[in-house]
């Protein structure tokens, strides 16, 4: 019945068949979008959800420029991940907080971050608040909308999630940490605004998705960061499990 051989393009090593990709390129260390990148970039999503893409990018850019100013370093620093803010000294954090207060942007940023700090009190961005924030009334409402936001981020290629990643890449451009050659898809970065409606925007999006990985290399990312782990485990403390056929109590 069966004549066609299977796994023909695999490489046999003893009793293991290696897929061509692994065999040719060697083992790769995967950085998980969900496990690591999502909790690190969720702050961008919160600001963009609160203020829309255009004003969101403007606030995020201000925050970043000020963070770089408050924490000068020989190596180019990009404050794209939540963990990168934990690398700042207390003085640098105070400088950033007062700088944002002076520009009148602190309150706006705090407003967007409130659910994050309320639900995740050990968040490295907690220093932006002088006092622990509270959520006025229905915790459930805020939790529900935070869950919806996080749920949307699982789809790495959705428009909203693409805008989050594009903003992170933009911060790399803005800091001078990323330069691209003319002719590369990423050189047409502004086209991402049209995503997913044009072919070029889709190409730019693919490049952005690939570029986001750079924030998680040893050069930019504190490998000892425990934020993603805290973020996910904290989820069990703030909300219970739900199953499809479960009746809401």
């Amino acid at each position, binding site marked *: *019945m069966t004549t066609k051989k299977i796994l023909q393009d695999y490489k046999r090593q003893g009793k293991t068949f290696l897929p061509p990709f692994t065999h040719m390129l060697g083992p790769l260390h995967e950085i998980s979008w969900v496990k690591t990148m999502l909790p690190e970039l969720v702050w961008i999503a919160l600001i963009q959800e609160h203020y829309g893409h255009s004003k969101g990018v403007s606030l995020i850019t201000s925050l970043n420029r000020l963070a770089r100013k408050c924490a000068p370093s020989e190596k180019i620093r990009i404050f794209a991940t939540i963990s990168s803010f934990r690398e700042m000294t207390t003085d640098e954090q105070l400088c950033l907080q007062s700088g944002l207060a002076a520009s009148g942007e602190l309150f706006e940023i705090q407003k967007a971050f409130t659910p994050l700090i309320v639900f995740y009190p050990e968040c490295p961005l907690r220093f932006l608040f002088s006092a622990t924030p509270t959520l006025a009334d229905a915790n459930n409402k805020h939790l529900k909308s*935070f*869950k919806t936001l*996080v*749920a949307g981020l699982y789809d790495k290629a959705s428009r909203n999630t693409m805008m989050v990643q594009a903003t992170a890449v933009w911060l790399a451009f803005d800091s001078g940490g990323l330069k691209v050659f003319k002719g590369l898809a990423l050189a047409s970065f502004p086209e991402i605004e049209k995503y997913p409606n044009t072919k070029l925007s889709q190409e730019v999006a693919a490049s952005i998705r690939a570029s986001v990985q750079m924030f998680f290399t040893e050069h930019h990312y504190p490998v000892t960061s425990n934020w993603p782990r805290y973020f996910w485990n904290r*989820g069990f403390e703030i*909300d219970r*499990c739900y*199953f499809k056929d479960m009746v809401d109590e």
Partner: protein
Amino acid sequence: MSEESDFREVEQLIKSFIEEARLELRQRWEKWTIDLSQNEIHEVVGALLARQLTLARQMAQCPPIWNGHIAPIILRAMADVFISLAWVLKNPLDRSRKFVLYGLGQAVLQLEHRKSQIADREPTAEEKMLIEASKAWINSQRFSFLTEVNVGSWSGITTRQMAEEAGCVDFYNYVYNPFSACAHSMWHHVARYNLRQCANPLHQYHQVPEDPDLSIDPHNFYLAAKYLEKTFHAFDETFSIKVDVPSAYDHLCEGLDRLSARNTEQETGGSD
């Protein structure tokens, strides 16, 4: 299978299947010319045929296990019996002996383990009896001190190679291998049957353990009957045996078709 009458009909199908399958085995044994100079062949082949019938019968008698949790364990054991038998049938004398010697070696190994477990104390009367009975069973066939212990596979090759040599590699690929996942509780079985996804995005859509109730699927009974039929057929072909009793498998198929047609008719509101 919601109607009382359906249950009664299935009960009747099970009863007939068992009676007819037993009759089939008996007639095959009666029609097979026994040559005691090569008794190993008759005992090994006969035992494997009977084992297959036992497995099929046990499946038939236990509708609550006709589900993805348990049925594949039985079906995988049946696939094992079929491949072993098919491989033995390609060289019956040599391979039957191999099968017996390997089994005796395993029995010696078990006996030695048991003896070592109680080496530093006096065995109880019950343990003594068990050890003696086990020794006697081995010695009645071959002196235990002459029996080799082989810790590899009984055939000296893998089950896949046995299937290839016996011309049933498709059966290995599509039956033995898939059912192994359940029999050995491997990830691709337990993840599907014993985990349930939590819909909370804050929990990373993790999966939590569960022991789900599964509905009864008569297809598992059908498969057991089919593998029994396949085993009988391999035997008949090798030894040119032709039985004249009704086929338990054919009857079961007719019965299941009848049930299925009636249920379809009821679902679609067909004429009465």
